[in-house]
């Protein structure tokens, strides 16, 4: 092995041609990865991190091109390399793992044959290649490789598909592995397993890794060194520890500050924000790329591009104010909202919503699939109930049942303010409909793209408040301005707004009828972290002002912990744990909650012992007998109640005041094993 870095970018510039104009995506990016090192590139959407990943493979989209600079693999420039040489490299030395493993596999070729292709490219015969596939799959901890080899991509779960892709990438014993958001979109427990696997394989093989992620926690756990990208420029770089403990670029500082960390709570802490939004693709800058959003900005920042400044051992930042960045003033959006509309609200904590034995079965191919099973929850006035759980847990279905968008099965009750509501929307009276509203995950789908912002909000005011068209429009403007959507944007269509602004419009609409309860279904998961903070602050303000209750659905435990007063943990359509936010987070936990919490990579670097959750989430059409968690339960073995777990479904019982669990294992026993 040579001493040259495994990968080196030298002043790399990449541009995409969009409508005939070249737009810069990477601006003079330089970094190098030593053999065997794991280097992380982190940044928000549109910062160019994926482009960097694909550039390392010399694979750019049809409209992309390298305009200057060089990419060196073990000292060899691959920019000018011939196609056949680059193919040789891809076959033997550089591999890649990408986001969306399910689509990365060919849907019509058996898994075994797809992996075998890599070996065949190295010159192995078909039978030798297939034999090697088995070993490769065992290496990525696939338990039943011969069975998996015969499958097609759609028959694999997301985690399994990603293992196959990793097996394929490692099949050529590469010296450089490029991983582009390899666990984004996977459930938390699956993500944790895949990351564990990658760490283990890396230790064994000594492969250098370029690891791309938007998730600072993941980067912190996976990488030796980190580079922070903003608007296509590398703004800071250093050892992982240094970056997280001593961030020296205002952007890095802001990014770390605006993440809801463990311990922060809406009642005591307000989240920092980074004002503004990331620049559009290919925006031209005379000075620093971050100047428009920087709290430390000076005139020279806008006119002169700062050089990389050394701030510590191999720790550099591209800023004039590296010394002040760490202690820069907190950016808190102090202007609070002004849309108060509920003067005579009830006292916080009084019971508002009672969900009683809520169930829903969908019919699929003649079979009943129980998506939501006997869910009972309560929400008080001015309270936030957080719903957490992995995919298939039924979070969104529960929300839609409460709102009446789906009709619930008989025996279910949704009681609002003491009134038992009809199962479906069209049977509820208009006041009750207006009392419960929703903010959806994806504002692009939730806002009619043909309507103006004013019309979207105005129509809701008109219908839910019974105002005249003119009055509704006035009220809509008030509401929007209160949510800090500037008047100049009121006549815009949603497509003209940034993601954060779109979500503000959606929130304005949800609040149009002065609701008592708003369901927030992953309202920030489509947004960058810097925008997420402003949306969370807005929601908290609205709650404080009007005493609005929230049901907050999220897969991000940090966000849920920050905003929730109570938390319900769902698994396969059932509530497995429900109680005060602190209780649920501090434990003792339900075994599933425990596993879920342990799978989150924290940004504070604290290493928690991983409680693995093996196997795949079962299908709700064919749930396991007894406790639905038992085939995967980390605490069942040795609990002494195994016979119960496998045969009897536990009921949701109050294990201590205000703390409910669906588990056969006694609370004290759980406490003992969990504190060991």
């Amino acid at each position, binding site marked *: 092995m040579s001493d040259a870095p495994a990968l080196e970018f030298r002043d790399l510039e990449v541009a995409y041609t969009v409508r005939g104009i070249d737009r810069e995506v990477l601006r003079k990016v330089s970094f190098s990865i030593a053999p065997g090192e794991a280097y992380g590139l982190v940044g928000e959407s549109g910062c160019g991190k994926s482009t960097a990943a694909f550039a390392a493979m010399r694979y750019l989209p049809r409209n992309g091109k390298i305009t200057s600079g060089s990419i060196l693999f073990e000292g060899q420039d691959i920019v000018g390399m011939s196609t*056949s040489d680059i*193919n040789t490299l*891809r076959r033997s030395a550089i591999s890649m793992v990408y986001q969306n493993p399910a*689509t990365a596999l060919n849907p*019509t070729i058996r898994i075994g044959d797809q992996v075998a292709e890599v070996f065949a490219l190295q010159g192995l015969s078909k039978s030798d290649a297939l034999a090697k596939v088995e070993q490769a799959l065992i290496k990525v901890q696939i338990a039943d490789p011969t069975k998996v080899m015969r499958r097609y991509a759609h028959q694999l779960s997301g985690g399994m598909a990603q293992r196959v*892709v990793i097996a394929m990438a490692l099949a050529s014993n590469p010296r450089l592995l490029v991983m582009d958001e390899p666990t984004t979109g996977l459930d938390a427990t699956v993500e944790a397993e895949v990351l564990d696997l990658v760490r283990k394989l890396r230790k064994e093989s000594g492969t250098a890794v370029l690891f791309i992620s938007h998730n600072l926690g993941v980067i912190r756990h996976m990488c030796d060194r980190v580079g922070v990208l903003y608007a296509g420029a590398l703004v800071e770089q250093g050892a992982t520890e240094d970056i997280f403990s001593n961030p020296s670029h205002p952007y890095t500082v802001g990014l770390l500050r605006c993440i809801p960390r463990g311990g922060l709570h809406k009642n005591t802490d307000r989240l920092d924000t980074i004002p503004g939004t990331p620049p559009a693709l290919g925006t031209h800058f005379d000075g620093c790329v971050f100047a428009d959003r920087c709290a430390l900005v000076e005139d020279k920042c806008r006119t002169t591009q700062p050089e990389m400044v050394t701030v510590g051992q191999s720790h550099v930042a591209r800023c004039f104010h590296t010394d002040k960045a760490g202690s820069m003033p907190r950016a808190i959006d102090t202007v609070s909202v002004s849309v108060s509309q509920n003067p005579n609200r009830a006292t916080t904590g009084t019971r508002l919503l009672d969900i009683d034995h809520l169930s829903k079965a969908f019919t699929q191919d003649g079979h009943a699939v129980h998506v939501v099973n006997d869910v009972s929850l309560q929400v008080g006035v001015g309270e936030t109930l957080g719903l957490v759980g992995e995919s298939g847990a039924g979070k969104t279905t529960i929300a839609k049942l409460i709102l009446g968008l789906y009709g619930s099965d008989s025996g279910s009750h949704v009681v609002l303010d003491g009134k038992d509501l009809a199962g479906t929307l069209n049977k509820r009276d208009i006041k009750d409909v207006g009392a419960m509203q929703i903010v959806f995950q994806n504002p692009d789908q939730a806002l009619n793209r043909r309507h103006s912002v004013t019309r979207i909000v105005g129509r809701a005011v008109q219908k839910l408040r019974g105002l005249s068209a003119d009055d509704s429009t006035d009220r809509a403007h008030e509401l929007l301005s209160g949510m800090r959507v500037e008047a100049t944007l009121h006549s815009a269509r949603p497509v003209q707004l940034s993601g954060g602004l779109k979500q503000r419009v959606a929130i304005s609409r949800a609040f149009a009828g002065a609701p008592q309860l708003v369901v927030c279904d992953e309202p920030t998961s489509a947004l960058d972290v810097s925008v997420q903070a402003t949306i969370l602050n807005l929601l908290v303000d609205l709650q404080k002002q009007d005493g609005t209750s929230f049901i907050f659905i999220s897969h991000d435990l940090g966000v849920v912990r920050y905003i929730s007063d109570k938390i319900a943990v769902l698994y396969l359509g059932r509530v497995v744990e429900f109680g005060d936010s602190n209780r649920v987070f501090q434990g003792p936990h339900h075994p599933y909650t425990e596993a879920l919490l342990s799978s989150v990579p924290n940004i504070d670097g604290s290493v928690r012992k991983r409680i693995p959750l093996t196997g795949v989430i079962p299908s709700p059409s064919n749930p396991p007998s007894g406790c639905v968690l038992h085939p995967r339960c980390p605490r069942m073995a040795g609990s002494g109640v195994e016979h119960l777990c496998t045969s009897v479904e536990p009921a949701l019982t109050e294990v201590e005041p205000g703390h409910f669990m669906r588990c056969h294992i006694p609370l004290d026993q759980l406490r003992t094993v969990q504190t060991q």
Partner: protein
Amino acid sequence: MKRFILQRLGLAVITVFLVCVIVFFLTHILPGDVARQYLGRGATEDDLRDFRRLFDLDKPLLTQLFSWINDLIHFDLGQSMQYRGPVSELLGPAIGYSSKLAAVAFLIIVPLSIAGGVLAAVNRGKKIDRAITVGGLSAAVIPEFVWAIILVLLFGVTFEIFPVTAFPGKGDKTVLNQIWHLVLPSISLLLVLFGYIARITRAGVIEALDSDYMRTAVLKGLTRRKAVIKHVLRNALLPTIAVIASQVPYLIGGLIAVEIVFNYPGFGTILKGAVDARDYSVLQAGVVVSSLVIVSFQLIADILFAVLNPRIRQKISE
């Protein structure tokens, strides 16, 4: 799989049944008296009564419908009003001729159109792509009879390369000569169908070229050519099966005009004769037969698609 095929077969039967009902509705219930229209304004009441009795037109409508369908099930296509003989004797040989023409046309159309679509896709955005897509669809919107006449004028009359009729007549009846006579009519049909099939093929290939699995293949180190052959074509050509089946109705519709221009005694010529003579029994039977052919092709395409597509195959076998 068996259940899937039976289910599809059931749907096909329902479709054909509905076609019968629609056809019957069109000829018998819409304003316009079949007997009077066939016999013309000069017919006397006696003529009309006799005619109605002969063709069961005096029975209640539902009885007529069900006895007609019952006859169809027993392969009895009824009696021609014009020739007073079994419709099957009229349609049988004609369908034979048309099948020959359609088969020759199909053998030319399918491979050429798919090749055109693939060629356009791999050269996306280049001149050849525009030529195939814009040119192909522009040709497709020009009616077959216009193409047929232009082709006859150019290659039959002016340059005298091809025969101007599709039927060899008394002359040389070898297979090759028969096919030779069918080339120009087939080209008229090709020009109309090429554009659609090529366009859908192109879309399928482009989707596969842009797919993540194609990227995986290239990043594994496969050459582009190999990646296209191994990973793109199979996935891309699956939807083409459905498109080809969906073009069968247009092919059959196109036969009428082409057969007339090339003086070919096929199904279309018979149908045109029936329209002119207002021979409703032949028309009805002709429509049912053509829809039977169309539905069969769709059925075959459905099953083929399911067999070749692992995702659907799995869904079915569950």
